[in-house]
């Protein structure tokens, strides 16, 4: 018989949101439970919930305190968490091109030095990864992926960069990620992708969903430039492959 599921902690995020916390660390089991609770709430809505935001280890539930109290909502969330099976929904798998190193991945050499190996080995291990979108956050389309090869785990930079380019693919801690818009980052830049995970006036505006599977394909800088132009024109999105 399966072990009963441990109940998440309910943490108040002000008077209009509850953080439903399944774990304090990054772990795929907790993340699957977050996404499962999110799906159950979508299927069996609770009056007063205005929006849910899945993250690595918790589900942030925004609600209207005029319609439901913290205590009443908390009870209903625990009841749903207890019965939410941590199984995947229909997994979509994306293949995302990336050009590694050079001007597009200015930290590749330094990462190789820090990990006492060659840039080629870093690229080979990163490109071989089988990743899951654990959460999307911070800025539009910024996708945090789980499944990074342990060999590539590396502390964040001491000095975060104030601006890193749109489309940057980087590693930090035990994570890798696809950054859509230019912005600040303390992670190490390995390369860039022409894929826009967020593009206004495109259908879909947001490409990835939490729970999607992602793999990377190395492409040369010339291919990147061509695909980047096509993506800007809305003629290239990303390759959806069978699970």
């Amino acid at each position, binding site marked *: 018989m399966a072990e009963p599921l441990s109940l998440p902690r309910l943490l*108040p*995020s*002000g*008077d209009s949101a509850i953080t439903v*916390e399944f774990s304090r*660390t990054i772990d795929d089991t907790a993340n699957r439970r977050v996404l499962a609770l999110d799906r159950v709430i979508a299927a069996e809505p609770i009056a007063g919930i205005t929006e849910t935001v899945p993250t690595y280890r918790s589900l942030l539930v925004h609600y209207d305190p005029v319609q439901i109290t913290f205590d009443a909502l908390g009870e209903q969330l625990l009841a749903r968490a207890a019965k939410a099976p941590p199984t995947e929904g229909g997994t979509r798998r994306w293949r995302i091109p990336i050009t590694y190193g050079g001007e597009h991945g200015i930290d590749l050499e330094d990462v190789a030095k820090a990990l006492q190996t060659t840039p080629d080995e870093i690229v080979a291990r990163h490109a071989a990864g089988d990743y899951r979108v654990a959460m999307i*956050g911070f*800025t539009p389309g910024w996708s945090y992926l789980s499944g990074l090869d342990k060999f590539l785990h590396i502390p964040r930079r001491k000095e975060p960069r104030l601006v890193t380019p749109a489309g940057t693919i980087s590693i930090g801690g035990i994570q890798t990620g696809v950054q859509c818009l230019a912005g600040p980052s303390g992670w190490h830049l390995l390369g860039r992708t022409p894929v826009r995970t967020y593009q206004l006036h495109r259908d879909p505006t947001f490409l990835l969903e939490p729970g999607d599977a992602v793999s990377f394909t190395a492409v040369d800088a010339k291919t990147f430039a061509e695909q980047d132009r096509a993506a800007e024109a809305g003629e290239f999105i990303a390759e959806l492959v069978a699970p």
Partner: protein
Amino acid sequence: MSKLVVTSIGPASSVQDGGRPGSQRYGLTPSGAMDRLSLAAANTLVGNEPFAAAVEIGPFGATFTARGGAVRVGLAGASRNAEIGGRPIAFDSSATLADGETLNLGFARGGSFSYLAIEHGIEGEPMFGSLAVNARAGLGSPYPRPLQSGDELKTKAASGAAERRIELPAATDAPIRIVFGPQGDEFTVENKQLFLDSEWKISATSDRMGYRLEGAVIKHRDGHNIVSDGTVNGSIQVPGNGQPIVLMPDRGTSGGYPKIATVITADLGRFAQTSAGRPFRFKAVTMAEAQAEAIKFHALLHSLPDRLRGIDDFGLNIEALRDANVAGQAVSAVDVSTWQVALP
């Protein structure tokens, strides 16, 4: 077609409305007005929906000129010297610019943001149901960026309706109320008490993403890194240097610093109006109190149409006029030249 042309404007001024909730799961922050009550009051003055798009004007002055016809406006939020063609205009009231007339607004006093609503609203293309400017994401209409001189805000001609003023609850200097959490247990009892006992000031480097606080150094129990989780308007995160940052409507949707507490909904707008450099304190309340205040705040927002008065029904308005225009050029004690805006 009437329009209001921006003839001069300082930084930190943009078109804002009720925001665009609903896509935080994709990293898209809601944005929207820093002070929702003042936005709603300005809109109510000219008969708009409470959270229609209006101009959110930062601490510096601004001028607007009507072109192509008369334009009727409602003014609320941080008060300023205001005049149209030499006629003094009180805050918390509506006024009409004839074609070619200019509205002059001085520096903000006793607050940071004023709201200029335009009767019939601002014409623009909603994105995710909102005109609110979020420059980082390239969103906002009619311009996806802060306003600049020369920008045009298109609208329909003024109706000629009688001008109104609106009676709002008196301003208060009471402490900003918070509830502890979601990571309150990452801090010792002593450090939570220090957070409540300290006098805080808002740094001049604050912006629509976050207000940086200057005061005590709040220490973490076990270091300052947590696995990123979701944020809300009013989340008070404490980074490694122990100086809290209160997250505002342009915040990131997730963050990796422990959040000691959250500003209650009813006090978010009042907190946003706190001028840089002005001392204030926090006060902890229970969840039940915070939720009761949220319900009262909701009722206040819905009571705004009942708070409209005729412009000639002076009463307190004489004082408001004197305050706005006769008391001289006193501006807030902050050196506004240091008020920086973090551009994306």
